[in-house]
């Protein structure tokens, strides 16, 4: 039987898993589209926004599709 706890942990795991894959693509290709100030930003910066992108990936996906912040 799948317990409630297992369900929560699996759901979190799935969310984070998709998030990690998305975040890697996002910090490599997406971030400069979403925010022009990030064009050519160093890898340290990309690494530092990686965890936040994993956490908020649905939001950043919407921004990426929508073209992002008007500078």
């Amino acid at each position, binding site marked *: 039987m799948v317990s409630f706890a297992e369900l929560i942990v699996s759901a979190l795991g799935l969310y984070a898993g998709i998030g990690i894959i998305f975040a890697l693509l996002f910090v490599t290709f997406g971030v400069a589209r*979403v925010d022009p100030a990030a064009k050519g930003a160093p890898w340290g910066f990309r690494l530092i926004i990686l965890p936040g992108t994993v956490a908020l990936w649905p939001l950043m996906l919407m*921004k990426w599709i929508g073209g992002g912040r008007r500078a």
Partner: protein
Amino acid sequence: MSHGYQAVLWNKHKRTYDLAVAGGIVAYIGTFIGVSMATWSGPNILSTEILLIQAFGSCAFIMLTIILSIGPLARLNSIFNPLLYNRRHFGVMFFIVALAHVIIATFWYHGFGIVNPLVSILSMNSEYDRIAQFPFESLGFVALLILFVMAATSHDFWLANLKPGVWKAMHMFVYVAYGLLVLHVVLGALQAERSSLYTWLVIASAVWLTVLHVLTGARETSKDHHGAVAARDGGHWMAVAALDDIPNDRARIVPMKDGERIAVFKYDGKVSAVSNVCAHQNGPLGEGKIVDGCITCPWHGYQYNPDNGQSPPPFTEKIPTYKVKIEGGHVFVDPTPLPPGTPVAPAIIGGNA
């Protein structure tokens, strides 16, 4: 500021600040372990893992209490402003300490079975209806998730790309996390028979924070209601302060009836007025100083030229400015804000204004 992104913005002051915080953490953990070993000896001796769990856990709780105190303290007295300067790094270091506590605890209590440690935390006991047995670990786990999102989104990139309102609202969840942590400690301590010291310390911190926030709130409101609250009366000059009452290189904050505040700075034989609200995270510019000819925000050090409200190049932030004049030793301001970054000639002290 919004001129390309860097991983971490450090300067000499921020480095000193971070080193001081890191030194504090090491000193605390060392002292905690030393004192505990001396106190609980013989048959009562605690294992190293448990000592570490308690040391990191209590350190994290104290750090969060300090972090939440810094804002109101700085509003009550400007001597606390230096603490505010790099609060963000303090916050991230706090998260790392909390994470260390969680990792050690998870592996110590839940890591040796075949069940996924996280599942084990959430399901170890399901006595959610019995206070004395309540699975306090779940509370800590939820708090950690909230704090993770916060630490992960503290870079300026997030501030710029999540709307400031969203970012601020998200970061208000820190109070929810704090509440969960208070319960986590109180309920956890209830289950460990040792002493009620933790319970009392945690309750005392929660009371301290509440009083501090209420006090600051009350003071801000009364500051705005007494004294020179000025109405916007359509482009008319308004007396804001005697020239001698504004210290050099500092400002006088003038509250308007509609809740806006204007910061009137005296520097270099001149007077200029700008909005009190920093373009970065709404920091109180009027509590800052003039450094190298620029208004410098006390929160994270963003700078603006007093006579046009623009950040010096290459930065691009702008804040609203106001017209000023001096007459008979008094400073007058036209309370209509000019568009952000509008140049305004400063009033010259002793000149024919």
